């Protein structure tokens, strides 16, 4: 066993890339859930983003339009969930699962012509100055732009929820839609906007998978990442910065266990391969034992104005 072959600088750099798709999807879902809506269709929206992003990037020969299209497509798809749950008051859990089915089916139909193709790559940014700082530079400041966008998004969501008036309205809608309605806020519209935002973020996460992290298109390529994103929101107790911690923790343990295997660590492989899930549970138990909570009170409940 030679654990010295694991380079902590590269490890941190890898985990940031590895966690970015989940981070995008989770921060979007956090906003949705803060508005009181539980959308279990993250997997379906992510994979739609993955295929649309890939297709557009290939056709325009440039990744950035791919990301934009992915966000738009997944956002539009999520509106079908929004219309069903907000206007037709359907059950959110079942509709979300239906959205996953639709997304998986639709994506593989769209993706047929793009199998086996290569996508244009997103270059890593080398910002003169900070990216050359020893240790910290290669660890944190030599990533592609979407890694920074994902972190900026977390900061943006945090600031939005905490300081903006609209953020307050959104939280009010999520805590008590009846009270928010009585105060004159448009509950359904706020929620539709949140759902669209969540869909767009999941789409970005999916496109990050198909354009940067993998990068290729294959059927079913999200392989459950959407579910992990949902779990990360719960893990984070609905707090934006904790979403970042959760995603990096999960991504970090995943990358670390692979590195430990590569370095020949004497730990049973079965234990290593279940470690990301076990450690996530363990950390959540520790957090929740200390009494942190925060599920929006109206989460998952339908709202109709004539109540």
């Amino acid at each position: 066993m030679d654990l010295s072959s694991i380079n902590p600088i590269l490890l941190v750099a890898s985990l940031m890339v590895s966690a970015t798709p989940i981070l995008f999807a989770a921060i979007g879902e956090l906003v949705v859930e803060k508005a009181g809506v539980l959308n279990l269709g993250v997997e379906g929206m992510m994979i739609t983003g993955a295929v649309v992003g890939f297709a557009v990037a290939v056709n325009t020969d440039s990744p950035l339009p791919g990301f934009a299209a992915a966000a738009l497509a997944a956002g539009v798809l999520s509106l079908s969930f929004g219309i069903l749950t907000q206007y037709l008051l359907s059950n959110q859990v079942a509709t979300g699962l239906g959205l996953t089915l639709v997304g998986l089916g639709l994506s593989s139909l769209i993706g047929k012509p793009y199998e086996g193709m290569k996508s244009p790559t997103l270059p890593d940014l080398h910002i003169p100055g900070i990216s050359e700082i020893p240790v910290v530079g290669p660890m944190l400041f030599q990533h592609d732009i979407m890694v920074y966008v994902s972190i900026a998004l977390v900061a943006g969501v945090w600031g939005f929820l905490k300081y903006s008036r609209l953020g307050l309205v959104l939280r009010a809608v999520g805590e008590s839609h009846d009270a928010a309605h009585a105060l004159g806020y448009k509950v359904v519209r706020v929620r539709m906007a949140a759902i669209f935002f969540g869909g767009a973020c999941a789409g970005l996460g999916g496109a990050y998978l198909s354009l940067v992290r993998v990068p290729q298109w294959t059927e079913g390529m999200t392989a459950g990442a959407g579910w992990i994103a949902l779990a990360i929101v719960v893990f984070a107790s609905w707090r934006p910065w904790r979403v970042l911690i959760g995603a990096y923790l999960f991504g970090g343990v995943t990358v670390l266990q692979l590195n430990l295997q590569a370095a020949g660590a004497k730990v049973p492989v079965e234990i290593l391969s279940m470690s990301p899930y076990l450690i996530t549970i363990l950390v959540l138990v520790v957090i929740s034992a200390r009494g942190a909570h925060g599920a929006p009170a109206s989460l998952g409940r339908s709202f109709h104005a004539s109540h």
Partner: protein
Amino acid sequence: MTFTKLLTSAAMAIGLASAAVAGSHAEKTKVGFIYVGPVGDGGWTYEHDQGRKAVVEAYGDKVETVYQENVPEGADAVRAITQMALTGADIIFTTSFGYMDPTIEVAAKFPDVKFEHATGYKRADNVSTYSARFYEGRAIQGHIAGKMTKTNKIGYIASFPIPEVIRGINAAYIHAKKVNPDVEFSIIWAYTWFDPAKEADAARALIENGADVVLQHTDSTAPQAAAAEAGGVITFGQASDMGEYAPMPRVSSIIDNWGPYYVQQVGRVMDGTWESVDTWDGIAPGMVGIGEISDAVPADVKAEALAMKDAIAAGEYHPFTGPLKKQDGSDWLAAGETASDGDLLGMGFYVEGLTGDVPN
């Protein structure tokens, strides 16, 4: 057992009905395929579907092919195969190991339908088995890898610790070691056949730990892309050629080429000469294809690799030829002795020199 009796008689009734149906459009031979993944997986199932297309190309209007994708290996397999037989298939290829017992079970109910099960070991009068000696290709990969590595570290992304995968690791290791005594293998068990994101992470982890050759026994091209990004790392295509990553990082590949076998077996059904056989073919009949060795490989190494390929094809060289010891130092093969198929089929141990344990 009354239940069993009832079942058999009912099954015979179904069997007769299907035979009558099969007879009604006898002019077209109906060929069925059960796939474990989507045809677009770019690997295992994709290559079986290429085999199906080869059948269509070979026989044109004389055959009709049908397939069902994403058939789980658990409870749904028996139903999927039965429905295929009931709708009039004359021969059914079940293309994953997990379909073994379901294939045998359904075959017993449809004595007139021919079944072909990939990678298993149970046969019946109307069930053949077939598989490919992928380890022959792994030996060639090992040779190239051993010659080309500069860090003397070769990374291996393995799926599940089953004999097929362990055989591949051993074959690659033996031949890498032979040309480069300093070589070390680091193996990551991904516990998946197909998860592009995880495969990409695994490839990066190997590369970051110093590997400059990455071999994979998982099906996606994600490790190829990771190697391309890292630069200076070589890879080999798995299951399909993955030629879009040539000449670097992909320097060669092992291609599952089922087409010739499928064409042959369907032909035998058509002319009535089909019988139950066990086929385990390698490079010689073309079931295992070695993809174009790219120019990134030095000319002498390429020539040696091709010579080894020819020797294996001619039956002059067996990749598991003694003297070989097991990992624990006990003797396995004496000098000049070659491994029996039985030993290879159930291989559950590493050869001497590999580090780490086979997970269990």
